[in-house]
């Protein structure tokens, strides 16, 4: 029944404005309309109406299911895009976005110009938006939804006057509170203003009065933006949208200089930065970057970002109109004396960070590694590789080797296979090394062998470890002088089937 009634617009068929279209959701009392287009509104439909009633009025009505999650995602996306107007934005589910433009308006030529710019952009995206700018969050919320005009700028003095005629549902109250007020004849915000507060609070709870005070500016309300406030950031806007890589590079250099000046004033260095390029069509491209040490070298940052630009320019679309560079993670970085001597180009010994950053930037953090010993006798676990970005310390490899191989020299191979390779062997005696073995289709005759070096399984991690058998390792040299590290997986007397042989490493 439900699926048969819905005719979602196909991908190739754009809904037309003159054709009534409604979006429905399924509730306890059947399918109800949640959104409609202008043509459907002209027929007298309203959100909340039952679909059956609407069908009765207009049988040719087009119906589609509402995608509520998709709406939420789109709203978050829009709120993020709005960050090119103000760093503090948030989505107001289900149908709005709030911006805290304190201190931002002058960048766009005043409040009116900002609202105009925003309206023009949203119109360009194909969104019908109602904008309101008010001194309080509650006031802006109410006026954007219930004001008689689509664009409204309200100052502190006129806020009271504009709020008076609005319905009480403009106060962000719960549905039953609104209904209770309307039953008592309190239909407008103006009806609440000036009334004795105690009876109102007793009847509708303190929350309703608090909402009223917040909307009118008698009480402070905190704004919780989508992202936590960012301390170190540089922004720039472009007169014309930019597309080319060269233009973006110039912008990045400017941003990097700005950011590094800010960081230097704060005595910080950036470990993680993010470049955001805001597209004209309502989305942004982000380019995160991590560095191995805290840095505020503008040239270095610009170079690292510039190396990865090609991925971005493919997705420029109609161009980028604004950009921001934000230091997401900062560390304290003390001032360093610039070179005063004549040899300005002398490279400071130990200053590897720029090289590591470039390598990580190109190959990825997982592919630039240092080695660290690990307390384990199992060869595959005896050493870890850790990304250079995770910091490095000096490890005592000599002690580690002494521990795992008991002082024997050349006891570990130069190359180790992460997965030991199965070999077929011919062994002289059950516990001895093989006399010949075949590896990768080549038969090797064993000339010299040393072992066994018995390595027991780590029973405490038996459920996770691949091997649960005792291994006997042999160092083996074949007739051409090549050396291999073979092991027998298991013991002869303990297991029913004959243990298999594996090749685990190759010596130099």
């Amino acid at each position, binding site marked *: 029944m439900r699926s048969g009634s819905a005719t979602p617009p196909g991908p190739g068929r754009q809904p037309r404005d003159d054709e009534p279209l409604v979006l429905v959701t399924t509730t306890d009392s059947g399918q109800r309309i949640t959104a409609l287009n202008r043509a459907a509104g002209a027929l007298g439909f309203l959100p909340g109406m039952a679909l059956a009633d609407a069908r009765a009025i207009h049988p040719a009505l087009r119906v589609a299911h509402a995608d509520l999650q998709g709406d939420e995602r789109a709203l978050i996306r829009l709120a993020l895009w709005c960050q090119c107007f103000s760093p503090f934005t948030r989505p107001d589910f289900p149908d709005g976005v709030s911006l805290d433009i304190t201190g931002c308006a002058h960048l766009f030529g005043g409040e009116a110009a900002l609202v105009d710019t925003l309206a023009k952009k949203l119109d360009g995206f194909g969104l019908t938006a109602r904008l309101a700018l008010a001194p309080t969050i509650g006031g802006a919320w109410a006026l954007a939804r219930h004001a008689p005009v689509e664009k409204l700028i309200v100052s502190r003095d006129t806020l009271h006057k504009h709020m008076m005629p609005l319905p009480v549902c403009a106060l962000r109250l719960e549905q039953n509170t609104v209904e209770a007020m309307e039953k008592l004849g309190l239909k407008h915000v103006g009806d609440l203003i000036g009334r004795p507060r105690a009876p109102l609070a007793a009847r509708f709870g303190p929350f309703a009065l608090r909402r009223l005070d917040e909307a009118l500016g008698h009480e402070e309300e905190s704004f919780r933006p989508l992202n936590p406030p960012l301390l170190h950031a540089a922004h720039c806007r472009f007169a014309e949208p930019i597309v080319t890589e060269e233009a973006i590079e110039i912008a990045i250099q400017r941003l990097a200089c700005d950011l590094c000046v800010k960081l230097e004033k704060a005595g910080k260095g950036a470990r993680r930065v993010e470049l955001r390029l805001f597209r004209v069509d309502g989305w942004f491209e982000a380019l995160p970057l991590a560095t191995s040490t805290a840095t505020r070298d503008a040239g270095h940052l610009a170079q690292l970002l510039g190396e990865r630009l090609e991925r971005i320019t493919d997705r420029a679309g109609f161009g980028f109109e604004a950009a921001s560079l934000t230091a997401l993670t900062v560390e304290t970085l003390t001032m360093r004396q610039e070179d005063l001597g004549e040899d300005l180009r002398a490279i400071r010994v130990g200053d590897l960070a720029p090289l590591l950053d470039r390598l990580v930037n190109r190959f990825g953090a997982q592919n630039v*590694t240092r080695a660290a010993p690990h307390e384990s006798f199992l060869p595959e676990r005896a050493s870890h590789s850790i990304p250079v970005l995770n910091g490095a310390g000096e490890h005592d*490899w000599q002690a580690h080797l002494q521990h795992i191989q008991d002082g024997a020299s050349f006891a570990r*191979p*130069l*190359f*180790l296979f992460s997965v030991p390779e199965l070999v077929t062997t011919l062994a002289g005696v059950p516990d001895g090394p093989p006399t010949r073995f075949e590896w990768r289709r080549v038969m090797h005759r064993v*000339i010299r062998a040393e072992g066994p070096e018995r390595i027991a399984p780590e029973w405490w991690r038996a459920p996770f470890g691949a091997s649960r058998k005792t291994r006997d390792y042999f160092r083996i040299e074949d007739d051409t002088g090549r*050396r291999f590290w073979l092991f027998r997986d298991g013991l002869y007397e303990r297991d029913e089937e004959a243990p298999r042989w594996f090749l685990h490493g190759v*010596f130099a």
Partner: protein
Amino acid sequence: MKQAVEVKPVQETFPPGAGPVQHTSGERAATTPPEKMGSVLEALRSRIAPQERFASAPRPSLSLGPEALDGALPGHGLKTGALHEVLPAGHGDFTAGIGFGVCLLARLLRQRPGPVLLVVPAHLSSNAGALYPPGLAALGFDPNRLIQVEARKPIDVLWALEEGLSHAPLAAVAGLLPDQARAYDFAASRRLGLRAARHGVTALLMRGRQTCAENTAAETRWSVSTLPSHKFYPGQAGPGAPHWRLQLLKCRQGLSRRLSQHWDVEWDHETLSFRLPAPLADPAPDHAFWQRDTSRTWAAAS
């Protein structure tokens, strides 16, 4: 429409003793007496030296240990701040080539502070296994001083090497190239060599066997093949120290007669030097020795 191209001969003055530089015909060159030729060459070299773009400062050379080896090299050792290549001699000598390279790096690390940048192709670990830090440490290479980079393509390996060579804090830069690396040609090797010379960082390239480019600008090219363990020391059973046959395939400014020569060397991981094993020792295993000491070792005599 006619265009006239006028070639204006350039008159140059030469310092006394240097003589004019001209393209001499073969017979005229032959008439120049050899002792005069030497002085002319010296004068020409001294004229060119200041015009060289990267006048290479004298760098210390890396002694390999045995006198026989060092004597074959022009600076009585491997030139640091230059590009060197290591090739496996045969199909099964891949690890021997890498091992020799690692030993050279270990020796170099003793001489120069800073870490080593080692660039390996990403498919190496699936094919030949991954370089194993305890195994590096067993050869005397301190894994603390290793920075390993995995690059996808040979061209990325070369890029990373060039980047590394521009950073003097590194002790050395080493790269592994797969068998068929077309990206590595004369131009690429020349770039690496120039960068190495400018910053004094030694570059070591461990190449695969079937490489296309034989004509490269490397300072030296070594070929390494595996040899059976030379001899047994009492108390050390089984395979002994790494034992290789080295051959110098190329050596700039070297003596050509050295090129056909080869050396059988062992690596001493404690003194970090190569040594020529005693020539008297019999490479065949001693049967009587094996029969006496059967508690730890097994051997099948050939």
